[in-house]
């Protein structure tokens, strides 16, 4: 069951605009991410990277334009195909690492095998019985990054996934992404720093001239 079938994932944005608090943050965003492709979204702080990812995930409404995951445009349909990993890790600190993973597996109706696969992919083996509250920031981030893998969804949106993790863990993240893409999945990754994913294309979010 491990590596249960991940269907091809693709993402198509056409002339997307997003508003927050009555202010237009993004406009005229068109972008396609093909199956097997990772796209890095770069740009300075406050340019709207997070807003873009949350809007694509269906957590914020689009002011105009179209966003489709595997051709599905409706937010509820889109949400079924997309996973969004935000700044917060969505980790419950009173629970152990395993308990957090098990909760996600249940939520995404994922097979138990994916829990084990994600533990080894992110090097969490020696931490499984630890209370998440006792983890370091980097370890917690790694735990949070197990979620897209457990979800088994084809389109991954990762917001600053490399924040506060060490070089070894960046390598694990890279391998996990390569694996995901090899199975036909795609990823859109917001980052303000020098995260390098081999073979990944970059786009820049910045203030329009």
């Amino acid at each position, binding site marked *: 069951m491990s590596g249960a079938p991940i269907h091809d994932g693709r993402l198509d944005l056409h002339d997307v605009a997003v508003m927050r608090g009555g202010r237009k943050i993004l406009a005229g965003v068109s972008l396609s991410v093909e199956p097997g492709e990772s796209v890095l979204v770069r740009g300075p702080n406050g340019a709207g990277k997070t807003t873009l990812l949350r809007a694509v995930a*269906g957590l*914020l409404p689009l002011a105009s334009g179209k966003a489709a995951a595997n051709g599905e445009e409706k937010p509820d349909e889109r949400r079924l195909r997309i996973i969004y990993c*935000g700044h917060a*890790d969505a980790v419950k600190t009173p629970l152990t690492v395993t308990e957090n993973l098990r909760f996600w597996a249940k939520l995404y109706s994922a097979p138990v095998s994916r829990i084990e696969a994600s533990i080894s992919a992110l090097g969490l083996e020696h931490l499984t019985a630890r209370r998440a509250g006792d983890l370091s920031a980097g370890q917690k981030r790694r735990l949070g990054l197990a979620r897209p893998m457990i979800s088994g969804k084809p389109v991954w949106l990762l917001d600053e996934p490399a924040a506060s993790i060490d070089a070894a863990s960046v390598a694990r993240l890279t391998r996990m992404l390569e694996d995901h893409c090899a199975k036909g999945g795609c990823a859109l990754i917001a980052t303000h720093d020098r995260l390098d994913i081999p073979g990944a294309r970059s786009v820049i979010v910045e203030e329009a001239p």
Partner: protein
Amino acid sequence: MSSFAAIFGRDILLALRASGGAVQGVLFFVIAALIFAIAIGPEIAMLSRLAAPIVWACALLATLVSLERIFQSDVEDGSLDVIVETADPLELAFLAKAAAHWATTALPLILAAPLLGLLLNLPAAGFAPLIVSLLVGAPALSLLGALGSALTLSVRRAGLLITVLIAPLYAPVLIFGVGAAAGDEAALMFLGAMTMFSAIIAPLAGAAAIRFNLD
């Protein structure tokens, strides 16, 4: 349904883990009742007449102070995004949160109620109707309370705001609850109706409130 079970189960586990959330609620409940008893005075006849209303009022107050937490921690650690993302539909996730609140906050109060009944000299015949009224009415308190929590989840220190929002909606529950505790069958029926009504309106309004709060 799997998301209902997952969220419900996780919230129960969290309440068991986070040292004594439920214990704190019960403690508040008992202390509030003792404050009433001390304020009213040691006259047994008066206390025993007021016992059931005091227990209901204190259960309501203990619920009110517990509401802020329902959604706040999920907002802080980002879990609410995950719940919204996976919940199909979001109304069901709201019900799971309300049900978990009932199990971790209201149920301990109901279990502690007989003890308060003893302390307040509740007549022996009054115990059964009091417990039944709490069992029937407490779900309405949790459902409407979770609605209050969902409405205010983007507000820092929302405790007082929730109280102002939800207290008027609690008034009928309190009225019928105290009536049912006094053995009035019509009141028990109305209380049940209130719980069912809340089970319909709170998830609808609560899910909408969660969506608007994420925008």
